[in-house]
């Protein structure tokens, strides 16, 4: 993620390629997750076109994964949509973090980068935006990483729907663990100071304690608790 050569000459093209290169490990991590989404979607009651449309228009892996579980258990549509709101609410925090970096761009750019916002693209782009060089094309880097993530997600959904379906017991392999292990890899670079360690500890513990809350509310409760704990730790240091 921090492998950008500080002396490379920036152009839209070089930024797109650098962004795609930077997100490559996270794309690899998303492959098993996308394939298992497609595989499980077929068995959940969602149609072939429905599963592809969900990846194309919702494009939010963890909420899609939770949604097919809820569909399979016969949950009503409004409840699934409510759960989607809670699970994806973290993107609001990401969008706020991007405000200073995107505010000068056109509405078209904001639309594209907003629609394609993911945990992975955000993690990669924010590192680029925070770098000291004054490249005017950093949003192209963001675009390159977002596009790569999107294309891969569509392809993996398709593979899951077609090839994944033919593999016996593919659903029992636990390929969704790829998302967990990817997120672990994304968290590690943040562990640089005492306050972040507190954030992670409190967020993880709260997530366990609040796991029973309906509609995955525990996720946001834990995230907010972790952020608050980090700030308190920073101020009392």
């Amino acid at each position, binding site marked *: 993620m921090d492998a950008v050569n500080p002396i490379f000459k920036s152009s839209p093209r070089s930024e797109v390629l650098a962004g795609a290169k930077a997100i490559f*490990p996270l794309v*690899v991590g998303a492959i098993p997750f996308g394939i298992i989404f497609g595989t499980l979607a077929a068995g959940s009651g969602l149609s072939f076109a429905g599963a592809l449309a969900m990846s194309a228009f919702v494009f939010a892996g963890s909420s899609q994964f939770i949604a097919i579980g809820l569909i399979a258990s016969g949950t009503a549509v409004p409840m699934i*949509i409510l759960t989607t709101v809670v699970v994806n609410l973290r993107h609001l925090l990401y*969008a706020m973090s*991007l405000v200073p970096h995107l505010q000068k761009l056109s509405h078209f750019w904001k639309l594209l980068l907003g629609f394609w916002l993911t945990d992975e693209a955000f993690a990669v782009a924010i590192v680029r935006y925070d770098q000291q060089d004054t490249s005017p094309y950093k949003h192209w880097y963001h675009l390159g990483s977002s596009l790569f993530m999107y294309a891969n997600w569509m392809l993996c959904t398709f593979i899951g729907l077609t090839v994944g379906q033919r593999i016996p017991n593919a659903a029992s392999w636990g390929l969704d663990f790829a998302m967990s292990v990817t997120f672990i890899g994304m968290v590690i670079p*943040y562990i640089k100071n005492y306050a972040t360690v507190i954030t992670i500890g409190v*967020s993880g513990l709260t997530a366990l304690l609040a796991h029973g809350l309906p509609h995955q509310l*525990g996720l946001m409760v834990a995230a907010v608790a972790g952020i608050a704990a980090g700030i308190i730790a920073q101020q009392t240091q």
Partner: protein
Amino acid sequence: MNEFMLIGGMAIVTFLIRYPVLAMSGRIKLSPQFLQVLAYVPPAVLTAIVVPAVLMPEGSLSLDHTNARLIGAIAAVLVGFWRKDLLLTIGVGMAVFLAWQGLLTLVAG
């Protein structure tokens, strides 16, 4: 289940979380203090997703060797700190998880 309503609804709410803040970003002025708060967002959010997924795979706490996700996660954390290489962390974590799960199946088999 009405698929059109479901996917349309999920797509709209997700977009309405991601986009409006960016759309209004030209008129938003965030204080440096608030931006500092946001720096804690990624580790807090990602941890809140990962910890229950790893420690409560079946909905209740599972902290022993029968939890292959826990073993895979420990491997990923160790490799992550040791080599600081994202691709290696993901690859080793996933490989250890799959191998451990295979072993558990063999032993139980």
